[in-house]
């Protein structure tokens, strides 16, 4: 039994707590299935798993409304699911089917969903930041109160596009929440081998931008920090840089031999698995029973199995349509 006593109120209500727990678990199970399907050669190309980082995407996404815009990277399964994109459309995309969220044109790295203002899936590291700046510029010029959430990794911080985007967003006070998912590695290159200054949130100073860092393994802490950042940006103070400190449990991609870090290091971090950590706290607080977990697991299994069935049985886009989406057919 834990430190909390009846006297102190819990930091989260049961419904929301179970929701966050379920969201993280959905992502975990979805990606485990994706990895399985990759080894079965149902999925090809690059597959970058988010396993271990679920708390950052799930926690952060709570700060954004359906009106807000999301810009992500090639490691975006978690963001897409947390944004509400159906698992079936994502699985079908990775199968290269016409029913995929990008009609099979993008695959794992390029998820899109106009109806949810999910602007993609950018696989040129740093390439999504200028897009986010532009989306925010459009909102500002049209006096919309919405914000743009821009996710990127620690490796992207070294790119010139990070610097140019931070400066322009701050200079023009644009409503962008920059969310750096610092998992300590850019592929095989450790943070200290690609950043001369490893404190990423400190870099906001160069742009007169506000920033903060948070434990990316604690979903409640991430949610709180992201809501603060989003509120700051929403009320017209300009952009904000939030560093989410996390860790990637799996290899960079399915083709990564993972030679650059020790098993011990990975095991150490797994002790801070965001899902287990949260599960323990919820049990601690008496918000989660054994039966709840079993129930959630079975619902998720059902959802993912049907996503796989959907992907398996969906048609592919006819080859005749190869050039259909290169340019618009009719002017808008």
């Amino acid at each position: 039994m834990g430190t909390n006593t009846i006297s102190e109120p819990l930091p989260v209500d049961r419904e929301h707590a179970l929701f966050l727990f379920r969201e993280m678990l959905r992502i975990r199970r979805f990606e485990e299935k994706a990895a399985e399907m990759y080894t079965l050669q149902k999925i090809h190309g690059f597959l970058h798993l988010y396993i271990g980082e679920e708390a950052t995407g799930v926690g952060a996404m709570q700060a954004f409304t359906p009106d807000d815009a999301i810009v992500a990277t090639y490691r975006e399964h978690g963001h897409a699911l947390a944004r509400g994109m159906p698992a079936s459309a994502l699985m079908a995309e990775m199968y290269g089917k016409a029913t995929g969220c990008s009609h099979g044109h993008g695959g794992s790295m390029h998820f899109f969903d106009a109806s949810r203002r999910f602007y993609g899936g950018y696989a040129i590291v740093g390439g999504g930041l200028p897009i986010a700046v532009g989306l925010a510029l459009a909102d500002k010029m049209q006096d919309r109160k919405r914000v743009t959430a821009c996710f990127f990794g620690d490796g992207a911080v070294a790119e010139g596009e990070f610097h140019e985007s931070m400066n322009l967003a701050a200079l023009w006070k644009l409503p962008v929440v920059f969310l750096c998912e610092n998992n300590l590695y850019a592929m095989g290159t450790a943070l200290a081998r690609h950043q001369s200054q490893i404190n990423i949130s400190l870099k906001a100073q160069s742009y007169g931008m506000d920033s903060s860092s948070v434990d990316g393994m604690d979903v409640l802490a991430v949610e709180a920090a992201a809501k603060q950042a989003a509120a700051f940006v929403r009320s017209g103070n300009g952009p904000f840089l939030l560093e989410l400190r996390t860790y990637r449990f799996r290899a960079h991609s399915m083709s990564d031999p993972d030679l650059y870090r020790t098993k011990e290091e990975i095991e150490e971090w797994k002790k801070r698995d965001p899902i287990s950590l949260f599960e323990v706290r919820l049990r601690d607080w008496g918000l989660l029973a054994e039966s709840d977990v079993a129930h959630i697991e079975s619902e998720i299994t059902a959802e993912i199995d049907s996503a796989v069935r959907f992907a398996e049985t969906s048609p592919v886009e006819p080859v005749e349509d190869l050039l259909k989406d290169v340019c618009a057919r009719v002017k808008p």
Partner: protein
Amino acid sequence: MTYREAVRAALRKALRSDPRVFLMGEDVGRYGGSFAVSHGLLDEFGPERIRDTPLSESVFVGAGIGAALGGMRPIVEIMTVNFSMLAMDQILNNAATLRHMSGGQFGVPLVVRIATGGGRQMAAQHSHSLEVWYAHIPGIKVLTPATVADAYGMLLAALQEPDPVFIFEHATLYPLEGEIEETAELIDLNRAAVRRPGRDVTLITYGGTLGKTLQAAEHLAGEAIDAEVIDLRSLRPLDTSTIMDSVAKTHRAVIVDESWRTGSFAAEVSAQIMELAFDNLDAPVARVCSAEVPMPYAKHLEAATLPQVEGIVNAARGLVPRHG
């Protein structure tokens, strides 16, 4: 009115008629534009719509893409095509791919204006013609207005396109005098123009070399060689039928292109004539391009690098004797 004023007039008209339109780039506002194209617009439309950017080609082009996704109608100005290399990632990997990559869910109605070309002794980092690289990219349109009327009309038409349009303004054209047509309907971006009809040889060009090519045609006329001059106007899409109709008539062609010869757009036109009009050819298609050297500063060396009237005349002459 000058070519410069025509572009400005089109900008002004677009800014007045469509609140979504704005201009963004280095020194487009307070400085008045490095080629004075946007002079005066800041006063009329204010800093929200005439945006001076930092020296950050990648982000201001990328922000143009994002703003277009977000419902605006951005016009981005890149001072010189050599600088656009710094934005090439956003152009190739984002602007051109987003519609297809998203399965048609998103479009990027962005217009980018880029000053291009040599002839002003600006040397090796300010003088090249890389239109052919842009024309290689599926998903975008590439326009090369060579007349005052096109400088005006193409920009307005480009602003109605649902996909990214790159407009190349050859820097030597800005002082060019001419007329614009104030018509309600938009001009057709997909057609090349026959700037001079002729029977004996087809001279095909675009952008900054149209003037030299027309001079060459006049000169050839003096030698009783009747040259037809085609201004491509748009490199992507390319109006092949106008080219092939002309070649079917003249049976010979010279392509004049300021870019370096190897991998020039002239090569593409030559290859297409080969593919579509081989049996109509009485002589091999010739190319007049720039010498393969980073642009030298010295006047005489730059002149020797660029296509000149004499070289065009000689190339045409070289084909016609074979005739009849």
